[in-house]
């Protein structure tokens, strides 16, 4: 260490200063926009004690909102996962004209306002909608009912799995699949033994993000739900109702469930990233 002169020591400490200033700014920004809101959710939820907190969560309307959210996710996530895998397979493993257009069309839900996502289903299935008279005649309710909520959720969570898988599959190319075919694998064997294992972490990652959005969607579901308490309320909609009734503690208590879900999602996501990097 005898070669370190004062001049060098100075540039080193200047570098160190720059580093910590930049880290400080980054952390302050993230603290302001991410950490404080997160703390606020839990602090507001527990403001009036743990008893009121659990009361807000176990109240019948809250329970039915939780149930509806779980049902919605249980349908939307698997359906869009199957779609995502199949679409990514078709797009990544084959070359065809118009591929870029197809990928862009799949991206539409990312670009469309959630409110518009809800609106399109109201215009299609609502009483004034295109299929409204037909549905009314046959006594089928879609909008302002559970099917509408599921459709809107399918719309907004549509691209998550596909978008995660397409680049992964493209990068992997088709060599392994071709080798499998040459070795005599049939289509199903090739898919389940080669294609699917190769994308498992990406797939899990996509499913996690898809699920987070499915359980947390607000705008689209809000438009199609009709806000019928105990009937067509999901957790986020229930939060809104409580908040608008100035029942802040209950609103934040229910919101804290979603915040926990979000944190859980982040943990799972980090684990998946870590695992996939390790491979």
């Amino acid at each position: 260490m005898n070669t370190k002169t004062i001049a060098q020591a100075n540039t080193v400490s200047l570098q160190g200063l720059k580093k910590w200033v930049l880290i400080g700014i980054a952390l302050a920004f993230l603290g302001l926009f991410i950490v404080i809101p997160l703390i606020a959710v839990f602090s507001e939820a527990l403001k009036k004690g743990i008893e009121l907190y659990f009361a807000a969560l176990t109240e019948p309307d809250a329970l039915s909102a939780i149930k509806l959210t779980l049902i919605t996710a249980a349908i939307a996530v698997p359906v869009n996962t199957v779609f995502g895998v199949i679409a990514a397979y078709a797009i990544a493993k084959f070359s065809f004209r118009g591929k870029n257009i197809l990928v862009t069309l799949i991206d539409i839900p990312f670009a469309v306002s959630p409110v518009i996502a809800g609106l399109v289903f109201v215009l299609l299935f609502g009483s004034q909608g295109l299929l409204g008279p037909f549905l009314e005649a046959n006594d089928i309710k879609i909008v302002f009912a559970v099917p509408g909520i599921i459709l809107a959720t399918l719309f907004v969570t549509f691209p998550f799995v596909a978008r995660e898988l397409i680049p992964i599959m493209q990068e992997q190319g088709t060599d392994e699949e071709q080798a499998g075919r040459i070795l005599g694998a049939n289509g199903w064997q090739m898919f389940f033994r080669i294609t699917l294992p190769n994308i498992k972490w990406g797939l899990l990652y996509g499913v996690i993000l898809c699920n987070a959005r499915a359980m947390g969607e607000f705008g689209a579901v809000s438009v199609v739900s009709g806000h019928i308490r105990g009937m067509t309320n999901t957790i986020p909609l229930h939060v809104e109702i409580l908040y608008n009734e100035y029942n802040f503690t209950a609103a934040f208590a229910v919101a804290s469930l979603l915040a926990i879900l979000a944190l859980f999602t982040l943990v799972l996501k980090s684990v998946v990233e870590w695992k996939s990097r390790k491979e």
Partner: protein
Amino acid sequence: MGITIENVSKSFGEYLAIKDVQLEIPSGDFIALLGPSGSGKTTLLRMIAGLESLDSGKIHFNGVDYSNKPVKERKVGFVFQHYALFKHMTIFENIAFGLKVRPFKIRPSKQEIKERVYDLLKFVQLEHLAERYPSQLSGGQKQRIALARALAVEPEVLLLDEPFGALDAKVRQELRHWLREIHEKLNITTIFVTHDQEEALEMADTIVVMNQGQIEQIGSPDQVYHHPVNAFVYRFLGRVNEFCDSDNEISYIRPHEIALKKSAQGNSVPAKVLHVHSVGSLVRIQLNRLDTNALFEAEINTEKYQEIGPLKKGDLLYASFSNLVVFGNEQKEPLTAIL
């Protein structure tokens, strides 16, 4: 610019990359740092450039201590193994970069920069590529541009890291001669790193053979090839046969130093032909010594082959090993014939 490297050491964590290296590079010399991967040659080059700091020791440029001088003040030209041409700049902008980033006071005018860049492009014979981007160039062209960019700042030392490593054989051959010519024209101190002994022998005035962070030998190509100081240098600089005698002493001989005859002569040893392959003007013959059963390789030119040949598997020849080399201080190694 002469460079003196004084007791320099460097480690990365636990790994000792450079161990107490001493080296005196006279001004205008053309030096090859030759060694296998992990020998520390690139680290040493990067330390001269200022891209790595020293743990201990000193580096002097013309007697001035440069050990802690920032890279940008060293006036070295550095050519990276993969060229590191800036992708978002044209060839012109790449070469002009070093002039454009100068402090305002010493920055040449736009016109001067333009002239200098075109002079350099002419020098590397690639004037027509000025407005292209690096991605549109071949490997050999990138190499020339990388050199032009390094020369733009009028460096007093030119450092090249595996300059031809990423090129195919033919381009490599051309560029070797070209770089040699450039050195003769500009006569700036030039140091290049290579793991290819042929490249080092063909180009350099002085070869520094490195191994495991230390210098094994410094000398002219002739010296290191014909008078290696130890087995490592001998083995690294060319094809070699190893024989182990009854005292476990290892002796070496190069394939082309083995004389092959059709009949016994003096202390020649009978050997059976295992394989013959001709490589251009040379013929390489794999043989099996009948006395010790050791395998070895001999190399003769086609004329000589016509004298003794044609040979086929199983033919008997007599080999004389008159130039066997023995390095006294050598550690015992497992008996193997490396070819």
